[in-house]
Structures are given as C-alpha cells and as structure tokens.
C-alpha cells in the first residue's frame, strides 16, 4: 500500500463517541491541502467541530456525503500527492475496512468513565494511554473532563493521560467545602495519590490553570511542568458577567448565549452541548458549589488570586496557550510571565481554545511535555 | 361572678357569648344589607345555628383545622377570622379575607386553621382528613373538624371520608349540622335512613346527637370527642340538631317550611336566649354583662359594614394574580 495515500476518517472525539455526522466539506475535490487545513466539519452528540488535515497533498476523493452519519474511523475522503495514480486510489478505497468500534472490543467493555474515592469526595476521571510520563488535564470553572474531548486521545501519544472532574463539577461529588485554590489544588493532589501518580505534567484550562499553578507552588515535586490554557491566576480581569450568568442560568435560552461567549465561532455551540451543561447545572448542589467557587475565586468580577509573581519566581517550566478572541479572560494575560514561559496566542479561537484549535494545542502540549 | 357552675371560666363564657352574638348580628345585618342590593351574588346565612359553631370551636386552637360549608360565616367567626375582613370579602372588596376573589362561599384563613367555606357540598370532608393526616405526621396533636349539612351528608365524598378516617384512625370530627332541610328538600324525603348517627355506626365510629341549639350540650359533647381524637382515640360524628332562622339563601321565600316554624324557633329555640338565661339563672353573669357585649358587637358590625362599603374594589391586575405560587 502506498504510504503517501492518507485517509480522512470520522474522528473519535471523546470516550463516548461512536459515530458522527458529516456536516460539510470545507475543500473541493482536487484542492491542495497542507497539514492543519480544515477539511471537513463533523457534528457529534457533543459538539460541532472541524477535522484538520494531518497530511499535505491533494484532496483526491470525497467519499462521505453531507448530512450522513458515519461510524468512528469510517473513510470519509482521501488525500494523496498528485503523482499517485487514480487506480491506486481506487484500490485503497476499495480495500479500506473501517476498524471495529473500540467501544465494542473487550477491553473497552468496561465503563467509559471511572470513579475514585478521595477525601474530596468521589471523583470521576478518564484515562487513556500508558507509560510513566503522566499528563493530567484539569478543566475550568463549570467545565468537566469532556472539555478535553479533542485532546485526550492525541495526548496519549506522550504517555498516560488522565482527565478528572473537579469536585462540584461533572459527575464528581457536588461538594466544595472550601472554595479556594488551595482546597482545589489539594483535591488534584489527592486525586494523583488515589490513582497512584507520583508526578505529572499538569495541563490546566482557565480556573484549572490557576489550580495547576497552585499545585505546582505547593507541591513542586509532584508537578513536572505546567501548561496554562486561557488560564486564570495570571491577572485580575475576568468576565464577571459570564461567571454570574453561568451560575444563574437555568434554561437553554439563558445558557446558550453565555456558552457562545466561550468560542470564537458561536456556531460550535449546538443543542447537545447546551443540554449537557444544563443537565449538569440542574443537579442538586451544583448551583451552590458554583456560587461558592465563583464567590471564592472570582468575586465581583475580579480574580482573587493572581499567582503570576510567585510562579515566575519558582522557575517551573510553563507553556501558555491562549485564544486570541478569548472573551472570558483577556488574551493579554498570556504575556504576564514574559520570557519565563513559552507563549502562543492562537488566532480564530476563543476561551475554549483546546477545542477550537485542538490540533495546534495538542502539538504544543506534546512538544512541551516531551522536553 | 362568684358562682360559676359551668365547665368554662367566666371569661370563656363571655367569649362564647360574644362569638355567638357576633355571628348572629353579622348574619342579621347581612340579611338587611343584602335586601338593599349592595352585596353581589348570594349569601347563605348561619343565624340560628351559632351554638353549634361556637360550642365546638371553643375547644380548638389555630393548629386545629376546620373545613366549612357554603353556610360558613359562623364557622369563620368562631374560628377567629377577622370580622372586618369577612365583611369586606362579602362585599367583594380588596380588603377582604380573600382580597375580594373568593366571596361569601370561599372565605378562608389558613393561619387560623380555617380551610375555607366551600361551595361544593361535602367537599371539605376529604380535605380535613388530609389536614388530620398532616397533623399526625407532624405530631402536633391537631384535630380536624369538617362541617356539613343534612343534605351533604348524602355525598359520596363524605361517606368515603368517614371510611378513610375510620380506617386510618384519623383525628377527625364529622359534624352534621342538621337543620332539617337540604336547600328546600326535607331530610325525610332525601335520606334513606334518616339518622346521620347511623352513618357513623356503619363505619364503626361513635356517633352522638345533641341539641345544637344548646351551647352547653354541644360544648361538652364536642369536648369529649375532640379530646378523644386528639389523644389518638379516632374519629367520631356529632350530629347537631339546629334550626336555621333564614332561608337556604337570601331571597328564599321558605314556602317549604311549616307555617310559623321560624317564629317558633326564634321564640323557643334561640341559642343565645337559652345561653343567656342559663348563665344568668346560675348567677354566673348578669343581664347587664350581656347587654354590654351586645353593644360592643353591634358597634363592631356597624364598623365592619361601613368600612366594607367604603373599601376599595380590587384592582384590575388582581384578575390575573395568584393563580399559581410560581409561574
């Protein structure tokens, strides 16, 4: 088989994804593509997103039809250099067999998510990959481990990836007994203890970034590096209206415009994403937990803990990634650490930069954690 | 008041009289005012039956609940509902017990344990079973009293409620105010077995008939029943034989009554006279004491009527409010 022939397949975003709907071709047949070009748009039960090209060449075949649903890894199109003969392409397409859905294989029959009991309550997490190099993904305020939908799989190339639901979030227990960065950072360390991780690269998004910083400052031996994505803790500005609105929103109507602020492209916020957040928010105790955390960390529209100074002094290896059009925490905070960090501000991305520009973020993180 | 042979303190005797007098004057006055055409809709007057409501309610506090009937003014007053608010309600005014949205047949004050007069005959019986059940769950020793007439005693809801109360041993007293007429139809005609006490027997609960025009008879019998129910002794039925001095509703020509029946009852069976004579004869109070109360009540009713007439009507927006607690 010609190694230059590269399939475009239905991606697997997140543990629960088994199929996706092809909602648009972003390139015509015959178009030249480079790595990172957006090729197709896919809608899952979680989100709409684009699939970027992993190879350079020409879009030789368009196989997937707009509006149709395909299983994960199904062949959607083919990219190959111009010099590959048509017959070879046809043979490739004819021979392509969609790998059996991993969900159905025996080792995946176990629950998709796991739970572990800690002094901070029962915490849910996901785990992918293996090896001693551990990456721990920490979501932000009001988020959950599915915020790493487009990252977990890719990052597992570098080792073992854990993503957890913080206390009061996702499907973890809805108890935040002390709404402080210290308490939340202790919860993260307790989680590492519980799953037997001595030290990890912490990747934190938004509030999760501030928690990672706190953990690195409190327990430097447990933190190998920091990746701070659209992170809190680097300056005092934060979108207070968003925080307040998010805590109070009780209906789809109220929530949707808020969630749209998280993305550069508001069209990414589909019905299911809003529903999932609503379902979380309606659970008893969530509103109280969020209100407490918001009160503790983001009182009156200001961040109460700015750790930039301490972090700079600590000399920890830090990667900072930001979405240029972040409407929650200004992208200006990206430069707070100056030369003490690697910094990249991505255009065409908002606060959920790890979702909107997943490919680039994954590259940056992989590079950072394998240093 | 040196000699008081009654099982009520002197204060309570006077309180009972004041209550009965207030009910009587309230109703007599409505009779007059209604005829003038100032009162919307229709009213059912309780005059004549005062001893029944009062004799029972003297044993109750705000934790005890009552479910009343279409003829509910007497029950309301005896249970402590504010007379000014009642009068305003009957006039359909914003200052009424129900802000003018209920009217004569729906006066309620849950804070006083008055769960509402009721335009649906017999409908209070299941409600009061629920009130009694709530008291049992809360352990507050509250008792529920449901009033109904000889007519509503034939409603299935009442009979079903008796069964429920007996089966669950609820602290409920079923009070039949038997004035002999279901609207215009006689008990004899409408009721296969004319005794309401027999209904109680059918559900294995004690039933007692008393002269409902004799405050002391009602008071003592009700007291025993209520105490028994409060202690967990179960439900009971009290039939009070009473006479209503007016028609079923105001404007009723009462041609179904025997000639002279109202006059006979007013002359010989007036619970206020009977009460006053008995208390005075025993030397527990003087006619002067009663006269003072009569004056005081008369001015209360005067004031209530004047303020009700002068009170504001509900504002138009009230039409749409309070359908739900949360919209």
């Amino acid at each position: 088989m010609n190694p230059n022939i590269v399939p475009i397949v239905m991606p697997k975003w997140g543990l629960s994804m088994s199929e996706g709907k092809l909602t648009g071709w972003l390139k015509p047949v015959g178009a030249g593509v480079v790595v990172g070009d957006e090729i197709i748009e896919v809608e899952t039960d979680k989100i709409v997103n684009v699939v970027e090209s992993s190879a350079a060449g020409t879009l030789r075949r368009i196989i997937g039809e707009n509006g149709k649903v395909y299983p994960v890894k199904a062949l959607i199109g083919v990219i190959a250099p111009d010099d590959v003969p048509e017959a070879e392409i046809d043979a490739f397409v004819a021979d392509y067999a969609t790998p059996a859905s991993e969900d159905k294989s025996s080792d995946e029959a176990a629950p998709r998510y796991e739970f572990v009991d800690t002094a901070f309550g029962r915490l849910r997490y996901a785990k992918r990959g293996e090896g001693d190099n551990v990456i721990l993904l920490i979501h932000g305020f009001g988020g959950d481990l599915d915020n790493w939908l487009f990252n977990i799989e890719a990052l597992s190339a570098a080792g073992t990836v854990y993503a957890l639901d913080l206390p009061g979030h996702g499907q973890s227990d809805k108890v935040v007994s002390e709404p402080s960065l210290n308490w939340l950072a202790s919860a993260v360390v307790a989680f590492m203890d519980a799953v037997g991780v001595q030290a990890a690269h912490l990747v934190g998004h938004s509030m999760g970034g501030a928690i990672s910083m706190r953990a690195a400052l409190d327990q430097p031996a447990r933190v190998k590096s920091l990746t701070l994505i659209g992170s809190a803790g680097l300056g005092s500005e934060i979108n207070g209206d968003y925080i307040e609105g998010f805590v109070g929103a009780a209906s789809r109507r109220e929530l949707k415009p808020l969630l749209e602020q998280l993305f550069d492209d508001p069209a990414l916020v589909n019905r299911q994403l809003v529903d999932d957040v609503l379902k979380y928010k309606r659970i008893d105790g969530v509103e109280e937990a969020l209100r407490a955390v918001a009160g503790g960390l983001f009182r009156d529209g200001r961040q109460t803990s700015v750790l930039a100074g301490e972090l700079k002094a600590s000399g920890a290896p830090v990667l900072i990634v930001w979405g240029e059009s972040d409407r929650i925490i200004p992208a200006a905070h990206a430069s707070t650490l100056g030369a003490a960090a690697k910094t990249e501000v991505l255009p065409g991305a908002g606060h959920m930069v790890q979702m909107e520009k997943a490919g680039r973020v994954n590259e940056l993180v992989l590079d950072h954690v394998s240093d | 008041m040196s000699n008081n042979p009654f099982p009520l303190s002197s204060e309570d005797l006077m309180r009972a009289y004041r209550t009965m007098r207030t009910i009587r004057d309230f109703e007599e006055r409505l009779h007059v005012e209604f005829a003038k055409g100032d009162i919307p809709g229709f009213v059912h007057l309780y005059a004549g039956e005062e001893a029944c409501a009062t004799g029972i309610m003297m044993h109750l506090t705000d934790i005890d609940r009552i479910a009343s009937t279409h003829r509910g003014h007497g029950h309301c007053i005896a249970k402590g509902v504010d007379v000014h608010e009642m009068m305003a309600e009957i006039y359909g005014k914003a200052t009424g017990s129900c802000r003018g949205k209920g009217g004569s047949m729906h006066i309620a004050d849950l804070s006083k344990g008055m769960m509402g007069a009721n335009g649906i005959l017999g409908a209070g019986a299941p409600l009061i079973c629920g009130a009694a059940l709530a008291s049992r769950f809360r352990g507050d020793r509250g008792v529920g009293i449901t009033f109904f007439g000889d007519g509503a005693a034939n409603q299935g809801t009442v009979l079903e409620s008796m069964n429920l109360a007996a089966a669950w041993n609820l602290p409920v007293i079923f009070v039949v105010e038997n004035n002999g007429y279901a609207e215009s139809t006689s008990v004899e005609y409408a009721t296969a077995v004319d005794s309401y006490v027999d209904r109680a027997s059918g559900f294995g609960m004690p039933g007692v008939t008393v002269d409902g025009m004799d405050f002391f008879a009602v008071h003592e019998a009700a007291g025993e029943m209520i105490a028994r129910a409060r202690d967990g002794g179960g439900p009971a039925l009290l039939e009070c034989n009473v006479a209503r001095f007016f028609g079923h509703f105001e404007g009723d020509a009462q041609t179904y009554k025997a000639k002279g029946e109202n006059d006979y009852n007013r002359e010989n069976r007036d619970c206020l006279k009977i009460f006053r004579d008995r208390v005075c004869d025993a030397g527990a109070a003087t006619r002067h004491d009663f006269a003072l109360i009569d004056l005081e009540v008369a001015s209360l009713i005067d004031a209530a009527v004047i303020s009700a007439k002068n009170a504001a009507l509900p504002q138009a927006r009230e039409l749409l409010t309070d359908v739900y607690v949360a919209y």
Partner: protein
Amino acid sequence: MPPKVGVIANPISGRDIRRVIAKANSLQIADRANIVVRLLAGLAACGVEDVVMMPERGGLAGHALRQMAQSAVRGNARFPSVSFIEMPVTGTAADSRIAAKAMSAMDVGAIIVLGGDGTHRAVAAECGATPIAGVSTGTNNAFPEIREPTITGYATGLVASGAVPKEIGLKPNKWLEVRIDGGPAEIALVDVALVSQQNLGARALWRTETFRELYVAFADPQLIGMSAIAGLIEPVGRDERHGLMLRLAPASVAPLVVQAPIAPGLVEPIGVEQWRRLPAGQPIAPDLAAGSIALDGERELTFHSRQNVSIRLVENAFDTIDVAAVMRFAATKGLLRERNKACV
C-alpha cells in the same frame, strides 16, 4: 271493639354522649324500624288491628311502613293498620311525653315503648293508668328488659284484648319523684343521682369525682348504669317495697370503693361513704347544697343552695306488662291454639 295499642318509638333516643365516653351501642334506625315491624307482627297475631304511633321525623316510622309495604306487595303481610297521632314533632324527648299523654287519653289498651330508660321515663310520666310494655333498644339501659319484640307484641296484644286478665298480666312499678321548691314532680324509673357539677351539658354522667348522692328504686347487680353502684352494694328487687340511698365520694377519699359499670364498657372506681334503705312514701332532703340532678343517668335539673330538693320513692306508680306471666298464662290456657276443623 277490637283493641287499639299505642307504639312510641322516638328516634332521638340512644344517641347520647355515652357512645364517646363509653362504648354504648348505637342501634341503627333500620334495626329499630325492624323492631317496630316485629312488634306489629306480634300484635297482629293476637288480633290487634289498630295501632297508633307517635309521629317523628327520624325515619323510623317511614322505614317501618316501607318494610310493611314491601311485605304486602309479596302477599305475606299480616300487620295491624297504623295511624299516627296528630301532634307537632319537635325531635326531642318531649315528643314521647306528648304522645303518651294523647294515647292515654284515647284509651289505648297498652303502650309499647321502644327505647332506653329516658324514653320509658317520658312515657311512664304521662301514661297514667295505661300499662306500658318496654322494648329495649340496647343494653345501655336498666329499666326495659331484653326480649324478642315479637313476643312483647304477643303479650301486649293479649293484655290489650282482655284475653289475659290484668291481675295476671300487669305488675306495678316503683318510681322516684324529685321536686325542687315544691314544684312539679320529675320522675326517675331507676335512679336519681346528685352530682356536684351544676350544669347539664351533654347530660350523661361519667365524671365520677362529681358523684355525691344516689337514690335507687331498684338495684340489680346484673344491670349497668348508676344503679349498678347500688346493685353491687345491696341488691333491691323491682318488687321490694323499699329502695336504697347512698352517699358517694371521690374514690381517693372514700372508705369503700366499688368497681361499677356506670356505662357500657365503662367500669370506674366509685367511692361510697354510706348507704341505707330508702323507705317508700317518705320525702328525703339530700345533703348536697348545689349541683345537678340526673334522672336515670341523665342530668336534667340543676339546683342551687337557696333551693330545696326533695326525693321520694313511690310505690305502684305505673303498670307494666309482665310478658313472662302473660305468655305462661296464654300457653297454659291454650289461648294461642285452635283446632284444625278439617282434621276432625
């Protein structure tokens, strides 16, 4: 002229507070009407064709008439014709008195009374020389005997028609008379109790701490009520010429305590200070200065310290039909047999 018999069945009887403070039974209207029908059948069997009843609005007569009409439709009716006295109905015990007086005036041969002690007392007070036959509507009472009403109807018919002579069929009864300040006498057929409670309330007696004096015409240890207290101390027969009087006190302070069934299912310790026979004819003034007077277990009168109360046992006060004697006589004389001429 064929005999006429009166029937007084007052639906208001048997509805008092003893259903709550004790376990007194409550004989339903339908059952009482059934008793009336059985009485009537017994009367008819002895040739009584006319029965006059007290009118009431409690459904008793209505129910009885309905039952008789239902039997008539099916062709198996044998009942006297029933008429009603013209009188206003008040729905109180006063109705019984008015009816008894009227029946006595119209010369009925006998009055059958259906009810408890209270109804019998009302009728006895007004029936004059007319004999009465009692049918108990329950076991809550002391005066009327428990008996199948058909047989009472038989016996009453036999006496009313003259088939059984009065010397055989009737027996005299005592009663107790109570007067306040020499006014008209109120009577009691079984007992007069004086209690310290000076109000009538729901009438029945159950607050034993208020019991002070008890006067009984007879005292049977097999019966319940106030007279049971006396019956357990010293029984006195209905035919004995004396009664009994007792001074009572709260059980906690009395020298003697009797566990007495003062109402159905209600057994209470009653303190007794002293007792003695009550001779007939002699007015007695009670010691209690003020209180109320219960006649046959129901508070009926109150009195205060400025009033004089007197109590007197009266012999041969009224006649009742001796059902046992009548039936024995009738059987012995063959009054209820006849030869079947077809078989001769």
